[in-house]
């Protein structure tokens, strides 16, 4: 079996495991849908984006998509990697002839499939319940920002897995970071309600740029939302995270010498 086919087989294996893992399904798929329904029930009607009145339904559809990206490609991937490491699985894989990259590619492949499937679900809910019109510009921006967001947040998960010593700490840090960043980035609460200094802090982090790009694509007629600042910040974070990950990634839970 060629390595490329092995990577595909390993990805399918990981996806089969995901489909059987009820808590992962609830956490990564059902939870965002519930959030979308809740936000729309609370903030009915219109909200403001970029100084204009915009429909809340489209606003929160775009926002929850950016939340899904962080939840699945950051929190969930970080949890999977640290758990597999703690169980000794990463070490076990290292002891087989399978190249290390095949494992990493399969985990990222699994994440990409789960993110796109969940995003499709959110978009469907938005189109059916909140009259989101799926124009060509919107879909173009959607594809680009989901791809960039997945790259960026998967890299961050790989980088942070080296910092988190245990799966326990990872399962706290992942959702915590996703939630705090969501509040800083105008994902849960529109930015016109936020103080400027808080918005400025949010702009340092990648989620604000994924969210802002997606919201532009969903809310501004004829716009894809793709711009140099948003794509640049997401790519810059991805590159920095990959450099950190390549230096810090660990295959074993405990340091040597403890036996």
């Amino acid at each position, binding site marked *: 079996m060629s390595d490329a086919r*092995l990577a595909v087989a390993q990805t399918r294996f990981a996806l089969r495991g995901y489909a059987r893992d009820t808590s992962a399904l609830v956490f990564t798929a059902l939870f965002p849908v519930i959030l979308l329904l809740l936000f729309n029930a609370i903030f009915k009607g219109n909200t403001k984006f970029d100084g204009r009145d915009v429909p809340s339904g489209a606003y929160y559809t775009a926002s929850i998509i950016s939340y899904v990206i962080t939840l699945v490609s950051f929190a969930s991937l970080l949890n999977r990697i640290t758990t597999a490491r703690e169980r000794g699985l990463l070490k*076990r894989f290292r002891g087989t002839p399978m190249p290390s990259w095949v494992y990493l590619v399969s985990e990222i492949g699994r994440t990409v499939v789960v993110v796109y499937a969940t995003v499709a679900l959110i978009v469907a809910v938005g189109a059916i319940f909140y009259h989101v019109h799926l124009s060509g510009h919107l879909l173009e921006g959607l594809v680009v920002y989901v791809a960039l967001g997945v790259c960026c947040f998967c890299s961050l998960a790989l980088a942070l897995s080296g910092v988190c010593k245990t799966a326990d700490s990872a399962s706290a840090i992942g959702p915590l970071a996703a939630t705090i960043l969501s509040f800083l980035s105008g994902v849960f609460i529109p930015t016109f309600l936020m103080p400027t200094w808080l918005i400025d802090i949010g702009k340092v982090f990648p989620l604000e740029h994924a969210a802002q790009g997606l919201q532009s694509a969903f809310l501004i007629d004829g716009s894809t939302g793709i711009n140099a600042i948003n794509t640049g910040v997401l790519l810059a974070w991805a590159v920095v995270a990959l450099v950190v990950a390549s230096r810090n990634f660990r295959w074993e839970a405990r340091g040597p*010498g403890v*036996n």
Partner: protein
Amino acid sequence: MAAVVEVEQLRKSYGQVERLHGISFEVQAGEILGFLGVNGAGKTTTIEILEGYRPRDGGRVSVLGTDPAKATREWRNRIGLVLQECELDPVYTVRETLTMFARYFERPTDVAATIGAVGLHEKGDERIGRLSGGQKRRLDVALGLVGDPEVLFLDEPTTGLDPVARREMWSMIEGLRSAGKTIFLTTHYMDEAEHLADRIIILRAGLIAAQGTAEELNATLGYHTEITFESSPGFDVARLRGVLGSDVQLEGSVVRLKTNRVQDDLTVLLEWAKVERVELGKLQAIRPSLDDVFVKLAEETPASVQGSPRE
């Protein structure tokens, strides 16, 4: 027979602490080597160096003619691992997990046959989360075998198993012996090494304390059969020493004699007791088990490592 594993003067330190002080040994093709030691003796450090997980600080190591520190993919195709701690994903079945692992190897064995070889025929389609501890451990062994390795590293395969599961694991490993596999087995149970291994190496504080077959260890370690009895009031140890020699010890009311000539010494003792009208309470002659030998050996501090830093 060719040596599958060759180790010469292997040294390994963690920080300032030297864990392996230069050990040398070989494992021959088709042999089961029992690598025995208490926790902290350096067993896992050694096996992880042989498996290619850890770099060494000194000495020469060769496994199947390759230095494990320069492990290649081809080499990994020829070795099988059963790690001490590996908790497989509970959502998959036995067969799914084994089928996936088989894909990593160039020349895998038949998955169904491997499931049978480890005695999990009836559990092939069971989720791993529903297996018992012993069954999970046997699946670990199946994962080590699925690449059809030339040498199998088994790191404490029965630690934490109940006595029944342990026996089942033993008979499975015996099955591997008849299949001619070369096996490097670490354990902290002497009875396990005695039962399974062709040859035993006892590792103590990073040095080889003894090695040989179970019989050789028994003979060379020089632990004698011990005759003991409880003395009655008025017992005079000096009179008994008169017939049995000065090796007779008196500890409290217990009289001890270590001897290699059990039958002769017992005859002398019994005749002396009859003539002297001495009652020998709780008389016994006990041959130490290899387990006792191991425990004694493990407790002794070897002179050569005294003063070296230990954590």
